[in-house]
């Protein structure tokens, strides 16, 4: 993946003075950079725990996993720059996986007793289906993987995955501090030719988060009334599906608050709309959507989806008008 970094490095032209809206700098300094520093701390702690206890049912290990996953979900919509370079976000979080690549790839490694678990460099060459939070979830929570009798290799695999996650998180954080913050705060370079392009990037991140919520985190388990799909819920094995929605909404609320700061009226409407959605998420007492077939549960989730959809249709475009940017293209475009 080395060459993927090249265009970014070549475009490193450091400006002299920051001239953009104050909100952009605040988003970097108060949300993004401390967020990735926190993620680095949590994934490092997870790898440390795994290095001395790799029993999947260990409370200490599962707690460390949950804390680190929380930190990632808060940041999962920042899919540009340091997370895209060297495909780091893909390696941390490959989801959804409609073709079952994760269990298939993990099984292939286990069956072959693949030696890449002994070397961080070699492990980082593996398929993204065998790396990151969602692969680890299978090893810690999936019945079929828990039933594997030869624990020795699975233990090495858990240690290799957690160590890899700590490395990737550290790389993202360092890349923000050493390279990317400079590009965004001095927008006169090939990546960000002007302030608007920086604002557009941050605005797009909000859109990506909202789209992930409605089209993936909510729409996948909801399916249709006749055919709900609880097995498609995100992180259902660890019963974190609804938790992720609430964490994401809270993080997006903070991002929207920064972006809308110049307009008090819009800022208030945004806060109210997010508060309503967060309240509805807290009312869903079905953490993995396993009861989505029950109409009483379904109606609560549909109300939540409508509340998020209203943020997309009523708040998001107004915010674009305020900032004078369009949503542009994102990685979710397409099929």
């Amino acid at each position, binding site marked *: *993946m080395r*060459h*993927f970094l090249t*265009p970014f490095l070549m475009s490193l032209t450091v400006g002299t003075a920051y001239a953009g809206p104050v909100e952009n700098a605040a988003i970097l300094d108060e949300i993004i950079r401390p967020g990735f520093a926190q993620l680095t701390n949590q994934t490092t702690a997870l790898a440390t725990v795994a290095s001395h206890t790799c029993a999947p049912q260990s409370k200490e290990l599962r707690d460390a996993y949950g804390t680190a996953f929380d930190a990632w979900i808060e940041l999962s919509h920042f899919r540009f720059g340091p997370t895209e370079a060297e*495909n780091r976000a*893909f*390696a941390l979080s*490959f989801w959804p996986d*409609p*073709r*079952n*690549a994760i269990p*298939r*790839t993990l099984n292939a490694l286990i069956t072959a007793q693949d030696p890449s678990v002994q070397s961080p460099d070699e492990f980082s*060459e*593996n*398929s*993204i*289906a065998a790396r990151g939070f969602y692969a680890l979830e299978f090893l810690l929570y999936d019945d079929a993987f828990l039933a594997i009798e030869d624990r020795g290799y699975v233990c090495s695999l858990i240690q290799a995955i957690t160590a890899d996650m700590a490395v990737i998180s550290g790389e993202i954080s360092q890349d923000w501090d050493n390279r990317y913050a400079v590009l965004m705060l001095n927008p006169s370079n090939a990546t960000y*030719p002007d302030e*608007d*392009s920086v604002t*557009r990037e941050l605005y797009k991140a909000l*859109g990506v988060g909202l*789209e992930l919520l*409605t*089209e993936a985190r909510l729409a996948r388990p909801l*399916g*249709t009334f*006749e*055919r709900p799909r609880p*097995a*498609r819920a995100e992180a259902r094995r660890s019963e974190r599906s609804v938790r992720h929605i609430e964490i994401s909404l809270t993080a997006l609320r903070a991002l929207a608050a920064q972006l809308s700061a110049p307009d008090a009226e819009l800022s208030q409407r945004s806060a109210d709309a997010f508060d309503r959605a967060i309240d509805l998420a807290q009312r869903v007492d079905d953490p993995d959507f396993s009861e989505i077939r029950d109409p009483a549960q379904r109606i609560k989730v549909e109300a939540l989806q409508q509340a998020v959809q209203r943020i*997309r*249709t009523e708040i998001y*475009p107004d915010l*674009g*008008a305020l900032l*004078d*940017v*369009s*949503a*542009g*293209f*994102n*990685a*979710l*475009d*397409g*099929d």
Partner: protein
Amino acid sequence: MTRFLMAASALALSTAAAHATDKTDVLNNYADIAQAGYEDSLTTAVALREAVQALVASPSDETLEAARNAWLAARAPYQQTEVFRFGNAIVDDWEGKVNAWPLDEGLIDYVDQSYGGPSDENELAALNVIATPSFELSGASIDASAITPEFLAETLHEADGVEANVATGYHAIEFLLWGQDLNGHDAGAGERAATDYAAGDDCTGGNCDRRGEYLTAATDLLISDLEWMVSQWGDHGEARMTLLGDETAGLTAMLTGMGSLSYGEQAGERMRLGLLLNDPEEEHDCFSDNTHNSHYYDGLGVQNVYLGSYTRVDGSTITGASLVDLVAESDAALSAELAGKLEVTMSALGALKAAADGGFAYDQMLERGNAEGEALIMGGVNGLIDQTSSIERAVAALGLNGIAFEGSDSLDAPEAVFQ
């Protein structure tokens, strides 16, 4: 590549002319290119049907190879039309019938045991309808005794609401002509034998008559679907009328198609994801090993739209008023930058195509640790990502940001293209 360079230079020269570019002319030329692209897709599909009829009537290595070659020839013009998908709702709503991917091919025919059975996502993933004249779906009994175009389109396609149940279109036909590619990361495509279509005791794979019936029905359906799309781009067709009905929305549709295909679809879903998964099944034309051409002609379609030029299957050319001229009137440097980036992408996709044509299979490029293959694929990905940022700026340069708030297209409503 010479041809594209010449086209780009010629258009660059015309940019210098003093007269302003008429937006209606740009839109009409775009519609003309779309119409010609679908016409070429149709004529090559008709040739495919003739070859399929010959295969089913007298199965042999020769008739099978002729049918495969006809399929490959039909892909080149069709892939160049993919750029019309994302901006034009009428195309996007229809596209799933002809080019849906990826597919759980076990729905259609026999598969290797390594394929697995029904999954969490898809209960019908291993149905094998060719061997199954009747089956249960959500408690109801489904009669599959006659495999007709209607049955494929209305019952089997996306059965159970699962998108991977692809029963129609190019990739279903591709599977019936090649079969599964079981070579893993080694070179080589699917190796279906011609005797899969043989009569009586010579039949391999079982149910050869139903397999022939399926292949014929799917090819007939492809033709009727393409005929419909050709007519939509005719003088009074709905696609053309919608496009011309609102200049701003029409220009946005053009740029939306370019950007969405470049970034989320081609660079992301089709190229980078396969590489990151190291999965030889994650290639767009996986049965035929034609993925390098699929990527190349997709990229060429994006360039065609910007330069307002399309070279038809018969070698003739359609050219006219173009985006490259229109954007140049607002920002000459940006227009040249975007044209240059499209050229860089085509050069990278050309290198990928040349390597694959030279024997370095796309399957091999996807293998873990294959640095040379990764570099070839990422060359295309990086070019596509880079051109997308310039396309976004072209949207702004043409003053198209405002239409975001009319909610009329997928640039501003990503959910419209997500579905």
